């Protein structure tokens, strides 16, 4: 039984809400679920829907969520409520005293899931919940079937909400355009509606409308005009979309590099352990999330925001520790910091591996960072958007610290001339430790954000260290604005190249570009000029 037929059947069921229940067919239908075979389950859904049993929506919902259970012995079917209590699938009555352990779950696969979605979606077309109706209309749009036309029209007749109505109209247009049937005016109208929608699906449907065997010349012309118009719009949106991807990649690069812009760019330490600070930030996030989940589950949505200061402190403290025990003996010998911090990075990696194991740690996304939304033809994923915002905020905060606080001034003085700074009464040791701590702390913060998009594993840092150095140097060492522009610029360039060249060649092209660019500007993008630099 095709999916749309179920929709129709369910609609009928719903409209004739008070149809008398037939006990026997329900039991027969449910029996299919106990066979533990997908084709049987499939048949069970059809029969259950056809039976018009009042428990059908509940049973189907439970099936979709993996809450539908059966007893292999007695062949009875139950569904679990959210509370864990069991109901009998046939009657809906509470089934107490059934041993949960003996029950098996009715298994699902994607075919069944789609079927369920359509079945439940069909129900949703008339749901009192606006969001459900919108979602159902969207489903209908994406799976156009001539047989669902009646249901859509019925729903259109009742719909009062403008957005839902528009969605239904689009769904209807999709059906009409793809069906290759219907009066010319109807088809032209559908093409117009689809043109207005203007996305890839619309283009696809418009093309199908043009290809329909009985399409009139008018329809064909309209469709091809629509197709080229949609294609043009799409290409504009695509460019914007690429720019957004680039911006988001760039902000990840920036976030990873910005701590290095302090420890390396400002302090001159070739900090190979920078990546490990990022990693430590990510592990802090993981630990904190676990802690919150264990001790204050109500706060679990907030664990990520809490992780920001926590990661800053943890990574910052470790940074201060490294500075005090190792780096501080190496000022004036920056090349040796390469050797020492490489050693430190090996130690930190292995320490984390020993403590947490070599495998990835799961960090889940809070709700506000999950999913995506549309902005015109742009699809923006919430997580990426927050990372962009967060990165820019970190950047701004850092600029303020460096430019507008005595600490920033002293830090720059110390790194430019340590001996003289000391003679000016600046406690160089303290400034060094704090500066290294700041850089490390910011790396830690980067780890919080990266835990959302990458592996939280002992290798996390290694995958960012090269890119980070590349960005800092490309932007011009010590120039924070340069780091910003370099990161965003490289991100955007990469994302514009990727569609043509593929990810690998795009990356090679970027590297070659950097090499060539440095020939033109041997001191990076935002090189300082003049005596001050050579002095």
């Amino acid at each position: 039984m095709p999916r749309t037929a179920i929709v129709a059947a369910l609609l009928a069921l719903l409209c004739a809400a008070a149809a008398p229940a037939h006990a026997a067919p329900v039991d027969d239908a449910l029996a299919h679920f106990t066979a533990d075979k997908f084709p049987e389950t499939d048949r069970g859904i059809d029969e259950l829907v056809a039976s018009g049993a009042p428990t059908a929506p509940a049973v189907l919902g439970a099936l979709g969520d993996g809450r539908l259970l059966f007893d292999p012995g007695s062949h009875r079917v139950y569904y679990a409520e959210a509370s864990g209590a069991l109901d009998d699938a046939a009657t809906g009555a509470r089934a107490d005293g059934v041993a949960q352990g003996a029950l098996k779950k009715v298994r699902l696969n994607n075919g069944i899931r789609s079927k369920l979605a359509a079945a439940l979606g069909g129900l949703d077309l008339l749901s009192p919940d606006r969001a459900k109706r919108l979602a159902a209309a969207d489903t209908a749009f994406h799976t156009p079937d001539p047989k669902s036309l009646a249901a859509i029209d019925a729903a259109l007749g009742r719909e009062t909400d403008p957005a839902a109505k528009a969605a239904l109209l689009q769904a209807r247009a999709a059906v009409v355009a793809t069906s290759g049937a219907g009066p010319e005016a109807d088809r032209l109208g559908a093409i117009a509606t689809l043109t207005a929608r203007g996305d890839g699906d619309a283009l696809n449907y418009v093309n199908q409308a043009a290809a329909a065997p009985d399409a009139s010349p008018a329809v064909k012309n309209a469709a091809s005009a629509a197709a080229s118009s949609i294609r043009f719009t799409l290409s504009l949106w695509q460019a914007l979309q690429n720019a957004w991807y680039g911006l988001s990649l760039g902000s990840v690069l920036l976030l990873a590099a910005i701590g290095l812009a302090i420890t390396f760019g400002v302090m001159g330490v070739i900090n190979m352990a920078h990546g490990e600070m990022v990693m430590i930030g990510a592990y802090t996030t993981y630990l904190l999330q676990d802690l919150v989940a264990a001790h204050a589950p109500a706060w679990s949505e907030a664990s990520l925001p809490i992780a920001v200061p926590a990661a800053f402190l943890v990574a910052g403290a470790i940074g201060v520790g490294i500075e005090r025990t190792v780096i501080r003996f190496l000022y004036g010998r920056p090349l040796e910091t390469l050797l020492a911090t490489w050693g430190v990075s090996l130690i930190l990696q292995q320490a984390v591996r020993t403590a947490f194991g070599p495998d990835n740690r799961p960090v889940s996304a809070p709700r506000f960072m999950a999913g995506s939304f549309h902005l015109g033809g742009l699809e923006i994923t919430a997580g990426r958007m927050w990372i962009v915002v967060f990165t820019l905020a970190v950047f701004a905060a850092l600029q303020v610290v460096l430019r507008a606080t005595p600490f920033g001034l002293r830090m720059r003085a110390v790194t430019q001339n340590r001996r003289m700074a000391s003679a000016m009464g600046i406690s160089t040791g303290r400034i060094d430790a704090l500066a290294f701590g700041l850089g490390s702390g910011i790396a830690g913060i980067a780890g919080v954000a990266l835990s959302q998009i990458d592996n939280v594993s002992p290798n996390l840092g290694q995958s960012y260290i090269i890119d980070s150095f590349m960005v800092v140097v490309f932007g011009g060492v010590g120039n924070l604005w340069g780091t910003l522009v370099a990161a965003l610029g490289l991100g955007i360039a990469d994302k514009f190249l990727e569609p043509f060249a593929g990810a690998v060649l795009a990356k090679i092209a970027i590297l070659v570009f950097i090499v060539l660019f440095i020939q033109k500007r041997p001191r990076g993008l935002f090189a300082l000029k003049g005596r001050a630099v050579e002095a």
Partner: protein
Amino acid sequence: MQNHRTFGPRGLVFLAVLLAAAALVPASSLLTPAGSALHLSTYAVTLVGKYLCYALLALSLDLVWGYCGILCLGQGAFFALGGYAMGMYLMRQIGARGSYANPDLPDFMVFLNYHSLPWTWWGFSSFPYAVLMALAVPGALALVFGYFAFRSRVTGVYLSIITQALTYALLLAFFRNEMGFGGNNGLTDFKDILGHDVRSDGTRAALFATSCVALALGYVVAAAVTGSKFGQVTVAIRDAESRVRFLGYRVEHYKTLVFTLSAMMAGMAGALYVPQVGIINPGEFAPANSIEAVIWVAVGGRGTLVGAALGAVLVNWGKTYFTGAFPEYWLFLLGGLFVLVTLFLPQGILGLVDRLTARRRPGPPAERPVAPEEQVLPRPVAE
């Protein structure tokens, strides 16, 4: 002033040890019975042979870094290119003995549906050609890359990072099967070199001896270069590049020449390395490998040629030993070693030796690795 003692006592000892090893080690491995106290196992011979190749790589790096201030973070690229040249020769020697018994194409080309040998492979069935390429390809890359970079006056970290970008780009490129170099798997399963089975003890001993000689030769060349007036100029460039220009020296020529020479040495090291380890693949281009090479030099003593070689052997020996003896903790040990060396042996191991013997002679400046670090690191600029 002019440093007439090209080698110095330390260099002579180094050369003597190498040449003795070239003669004695193969003898011990081939002529003494396996149980004997004098016997060196093939395992040990191969292992040390590999270290010697690393030592030559380190030497080449010290030449540019220690004596000319060019911190090349892409030295591994030259090494790998030399290795590929040799690997291609070895692949061609397999002939029809590959899995698919194709007389013209290496196995990986057969299963990737190549129909004929790409032009890049022409000529590699000839050993002299392969050796020439092992020198010429890294050399030419360094020449072109160096000429443009040095002419544009790219210095310090900027140069370091573009050399890193170079090796990283090559890594990605060689990963691609389209390049026709075996992709990620690289070249392996070699059979013959110059008609001898690469796996036989005799060939291994010969390869070992060749590595010793190559390292000795590399040292002689490097010492001659650094001991000449040319070497003094490069040290001057390292310390005050623009001042050298005002004396009328064409800095970019000097740098390009050392860089090219060093790349060729690295290429030679790679070419000797491949038949001894039996595989060459893009992993050798990994930026981390080049950084490790820098670390060997730093551990041994930057600006002391012997130290660089020593550092390479020691660090790699440590790695071999630790990964076997403490597989779960070796990174702590190696990492700790690096930290301790930096803190307590700022001039590397040979720096320590120098310090202990400093009272005897002031030492020629070229042998003193203290350099104003500004040469490599631009003065930090705060925004």
